């Protein structure tokens, strides 16, 4: 995948994450991967190495906020939208017509070979 496609896939995944969190409220990493797979009908396994950089980038940009809590003996980090994140997610809803097409293109984002089937 070239740099342009990677950037495109990254933006698409960001949009997906924002929309999911707008729908669900708060979610954690594994839960997001499952939801993305479910939305894509199992046709698009979300790569392990793709999700967390995107989540952390969104957090850094102030679109997400987090809280860690202990669940089943381990630390779990939950994400939800900030106000500006909700505004961004709302704005991205207008593009939902093209969204499904973009999702299909979300194959193997950076870096290649990272943890498929998650």
């Amino acid at each position, binding site marked *: 995948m070239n740099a342009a496609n990677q950037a495109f896939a990254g933006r698409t995944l960001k949009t997906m994450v924002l929309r999911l969190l707008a729908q669900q409220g708060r979610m954690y990493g*594994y839960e997001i991967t499952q939801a993305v797979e479910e939305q894509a009908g199992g046709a698009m396994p979300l790569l*392990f190495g793709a999700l967390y950089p995107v989540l952390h980038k969104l957090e850094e940009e102030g679109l997400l906020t987090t809280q860690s809590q202990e669940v089943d003996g*381990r630390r*779990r980090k939950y994400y939800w939208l900030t106000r500006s994140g909700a505004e961004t997610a709302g704005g991205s809803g207008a593009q939902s017509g093209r969204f499904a097409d973009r999702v299909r293109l979300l194959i193997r984002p*950076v*870096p290649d070979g*990272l943890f498929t089937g*998650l």
Partner: protein
Amino acid sequence: MNKLSHPQLDHIAQHIRSTRPDPALYDELVDHVASLIEQRMAGGQAFPAAFDGVMQQANAQTLDQLKQLYRREFTALPATPVVRRVRSRRRPAPRPLWYTLLAFLTVMGCLVAVSQPLAMPVAVFRTVGAVGGAGVMSLLLVRWWLARRPRKRGRFVLA
């Protein structure tokens, strides 16, 4: 869904730690891998088989790539050069010659100023003034002499 026991979680955590992941990612990796293993165990696999299956995907190479990605994307630039630049602006390099000249003039000014209230003739300070003045003049002369000669590059650089 099957919940992992503490020893099983410790086993996962130990494996993840051995790959030295980015600290920002560690907790989430453990939780993610544990969730995947639980999912496989719910499908009927035993822990060792589920662990091995997940770890084939989350192998050291994969986690190392992720670590490199985090290093590139999230590591802040070192702040040291900025601090140095700010400091150098705030605190200019010391100039000993000018400090010496200023100190000499200040001392002489003070001596002249106190001479009248203490009823001391200014001539008392003539010797001190002459010696100090000669010293400052010689310093200025040496400085001028050194400045007019071209400096040799690398003169003080150790081989």
